[in-house]
């Protein structure tokens, strides 16, 4: 192994391999799009037929557009992150989690089953948690990851409730069938609509759930580029657009979405320029863009859907590019302060070119794709039924601030002059430049062939979202119309705003705003810690002194709970008469059992207590084997052996220690023991004395015929009730793996 100064090449190779996988997916998507855009590809495998849940995927035009974006940007991100990991010395496992995320995201947009959609939705949240927490040795990264996860997973729970209701109301979980009939449209209760909106708002960082996204910028640059700008945060938009036909007849839908989106887009755009930290700036500008998309879907006309599709594509391209660029600049100069950096165009010419192209698309300058998107957006907002003049006004203000933000991220660091000396830069490896440059050039290229892109991508997607669509026209030049004048005005005002932003007094005001305004993370942190404190307090109401006290409290609680339950549903007849301790062996065993229990209570050392308890276990084994349960007997015997061995192995010194004196009054213990003992006796007697139930007969009849095994206990465990067993075993496995990793980390820390 070559272990000199050169970092290993492995992540780079792996990155390119994963990028190749994405390219395969990209070309397959392209073939499907070119082949038959109108007839969706279907795949359905029965999964849990008894619940009507299938593993079904469906690729219609809308899914394909998303898949194309995910695969394309994924390929660039993987190519970028391999070199990024190498340059930054991060762990290669980052690539693995990123790929898992890629798969989850593909699954999310392709899912045709509500439950499957939910599973992929949660999987993306989990990946986001792991990826934000890449630098988990930093406290801020851990906190950011926790907040992102709790917020998005909380939204996920709302989504689950809504999806289950939709599935139950429709009688099927297949999304295509639910949407096709249109029977459900407008017939769903308002809470389902609200739950879907909350789920989308948490995932797509809408006010007031937005603050996890800027905080999530603790993640490495490729993660921010892929998850937190181009794909994952768009999952909420995807959900809204997908379920739009179910809700758009309800006026509440647009009454919720349009103000939500409008407030978010203005808030995000204004806050964006307050942050000199370029990553934060981009995060807030992403929030703003997501607000634009939410409001466009809320308007719900065919025109606005078209605008949403084009805007979404444009934003994914330029924002992913800008995130990558900021990562490069940070790597190269060690800073990502937009007002501190200056004059980089000479030392980083290619990075500067990529930043400029993406920035021009962001401000919507012709002929880039951003221009097309912005014109369509304005048209849709002006024509919107809802909101009157307020909506275009808010959009106009948002554009002004967006232009200023774009100037701060893609103009200032490169072209501003300062008196201070030139910034020392580190060379940027060429593979890192591929991604941002390609995205910038693509943004430009689409502007030259708008109709081709519209035919290939936007038309099939729009037909899904707005079935009345016949064809999608996309052109660069609309003539001199109000929209063009508005956007030129926004551009000019934005440039002026950016210039003002650099003056010292405004900088001071912005610094003050940054310190005071966004209270999201603080509110979240204090709420979380208050909850944790509440948990601790609630524990302290029990007067616990040691483990024995805990056991006592548990026993009393158990006896009370089941005692009350039994009291309300007392069986009609007494079962005690049916108790049969018939044979003398039973009596002998019972006596032995009682004796060994007394022995355990009386013993003075751990070893003696352990042996007495073992003796009780043997007595139980005999009872099991004489009453026709050889499996239980065998298990009981082995467990007893195992416990003894484990104690002998783990605590040789512990065993010789004397048992500590109990401090509580004996009456307390007697009471709890008596109560729980009496209850357990009663519980045991009740079902044991009953005649063979239906279940017994069911298993007796089917075990051999259906499962092909003669051992009923085993067949129940591994076949009829395999899901329960599997859950238990997986808990054991993951607990053990957790112990293993903790031990490994501990060992590494020790040296």
């Amino acid at each position, binding site marked *: 192994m070559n272990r000199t100064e050169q970092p290993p090449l492995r992540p780079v190779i792996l990155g390119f391999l994963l990028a190749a996988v994405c390219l395969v997916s990209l070309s397959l998507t392209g073939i499907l799009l070119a082949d038959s855009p109108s007839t969706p590809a279907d795949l359905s495998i029965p*999964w*849990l037929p008894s619940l009507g849940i299938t593993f079904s995927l469906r690729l219609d035009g809308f899914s394909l557009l998303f898949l194309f974006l995910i695969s394309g940007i994924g390929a660039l991100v993987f190519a970028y992150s391999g070199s990024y990991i190498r340059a930054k010395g991060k762990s290669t496992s980052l690539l693995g989690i990123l790929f898992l995320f890629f798969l989850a995201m593909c699954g999310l947009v392709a899912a045709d089953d509500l439950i499957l959609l939910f599973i992929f939705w949660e999987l993306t949240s989990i990946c986001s948690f792991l990826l934000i927490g890449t630098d988990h040795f930093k406290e801020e990264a851990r906190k950011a990851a926790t907040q992102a996860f709790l917020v998005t997973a909380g939204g996920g729970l709302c989504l689950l409730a809504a999806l289950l209701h939709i599935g139950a109301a429709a009688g099927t979980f297949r999304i295509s069938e639910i949407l096709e009939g249109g029977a459900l449209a407008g017939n769903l209760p308002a809470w389902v609509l609200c739950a879907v909106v909350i789920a989308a708002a948490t995932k797509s960082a809408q006010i007031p759930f937005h603050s996890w996204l800027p905080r999530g910028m603790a993640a490495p640059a490729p993660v921010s580029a892929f998850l937190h700008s181009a794909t994952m945060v768009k999952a909420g938009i995807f959900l809204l657009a997908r379920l739009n036909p179910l809700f758009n007849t309800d006026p509440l839908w647009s009454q919720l979405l349009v103000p939500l989106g409008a407030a978010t887009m203005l808030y995000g755009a204004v806050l964006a320029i307050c942050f000199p930290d370029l990553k934060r700036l981009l995060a807030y500008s992403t929030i703003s863009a997501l607000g634009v998309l939410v409001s466009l879907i809320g308007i719900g006309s065919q025109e606005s859907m078209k605008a949403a599709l084009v805007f979404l594509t444009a934003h994914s391209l330029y924002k992913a590019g800008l995130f990558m660029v900021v990562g490069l600049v940070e790597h190269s100069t060690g800073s990502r302060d937009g007002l501190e950096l200056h004059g980089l165009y000479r030392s980083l010419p290619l990075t500067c070119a990529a930043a400029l192209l993406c920035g021009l698309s962001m401000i919507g300058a012709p002929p880039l794709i951003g221009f097309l998107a912005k014109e369509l957006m304005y048209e849709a907002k002006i024509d919107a039924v809802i909101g009157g003049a307020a909506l275009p006004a808010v959009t106009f203000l948002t554009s002004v601030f967006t232009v200023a933000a774009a100037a701060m991220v893609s103009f200032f660091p490169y072209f501003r002059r300062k008196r201070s000396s030139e910034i020392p830069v580190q060379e940027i490896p060429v593979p890192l430049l591929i991604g941002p440059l390609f995205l910038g050039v693509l943004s430009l290229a689409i502007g030259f062939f708008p109709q081709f892109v519209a035919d290939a991508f936007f038309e099939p997607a729009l037909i899904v979202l707005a079935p009345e669509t016949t064809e999608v026209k996309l052109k660069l030049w609309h003539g001199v119309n109000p929209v063009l004048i508005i956007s030129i005005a926004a551009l000019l005002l934005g440039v002026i705003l950016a210039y003002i932003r650099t003056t010292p007094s405004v900088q001071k005001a912005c610094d003050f705003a940054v310190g005071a305004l966004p209270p999201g993370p603080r509110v979240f942190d204090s709420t979380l810690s208050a909850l944790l404190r509440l948990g601790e307090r609630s524990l302290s109401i029990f007067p616990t002194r040691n483990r024995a006290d805990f056991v006592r409290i548990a026993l009393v609680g158990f006896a009370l709970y089941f005692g009350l339950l039994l009291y309300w549903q007392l069986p009609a007849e007494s079962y005690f008469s049916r108790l049969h301790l018939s044979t003398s062996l039973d009596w002998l065993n019972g006596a032995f059992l009682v004796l060994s229990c007394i022995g355990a209570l009386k013993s003075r050392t751990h070893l003696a207590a352990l042996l007495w308890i073992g003796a009780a276990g043997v007595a139980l084994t005999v009872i099991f084997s004489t009453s026709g349960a050889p*499996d239980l007997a065998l298990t009981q015997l*082995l467990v007893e052996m195992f416990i003894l061995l484990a104690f002998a192995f783990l605590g040789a010194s512990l065993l010789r220690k004397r048992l500590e004196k109990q401090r509580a009054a004996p009456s307390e213990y007697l009471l709890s023991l008596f109560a729980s003992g009496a209850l357990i006796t009663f519980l045991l007697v009740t079902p044991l004395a009953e005649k063979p139930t239906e279940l017994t007969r069911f298993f007796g009849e089917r075990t051999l015929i259906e*499962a*092909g095994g*003669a051992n009923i206990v085993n067949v129940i465990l591994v076949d009829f009730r*395999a899901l329960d067993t599997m859950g238990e075993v997986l808990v054991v496995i993951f607990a*053990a793996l957790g112990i*293993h990793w903790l031990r490994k980390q501990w060992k590494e820390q020790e040296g």
Partner: protein
Amino acid sequence: MNSSKLLMTASRLLVPVQLLIAVWLLLRGHNFPGGGFIAGLSFGAALTLWCSERNALPEDLSTVFRGRFLLTLGWLSLLTSTLLSPLLGGIFMESVVLFSFETFLFGKVLVGSVLLFDLGVFFAVGGFTAVILELRSDGGQE
């Protein structure tokens, strides 16, 4: 560690026998008393006995007996057993029998999802024991 000669000698004999018993319990479990869990317990007991006498790690007995490896084997077997049926065109978690053969010691052995499931439980229990044994021998060596 003070280990007695008697137990040391006995364990040399006992451990292989215990391992054989584990396999026996595992294979006959579907038709007679036995099954993955108690086979795993027997396996774990064998590992514990062997390690405690020599103050060693399970992997010293065989490199296969590393905790992480056994656990991974465990969840992979479980996963495969659930996916066997869908792969053959059936339903998730349905029981599938690939083939079966008659044996003298174990009765009729069915090779399929159920055996894989039992194997998963077996490896999980054994792997858990191995992880605990590894944990303890860390402290011992310091």
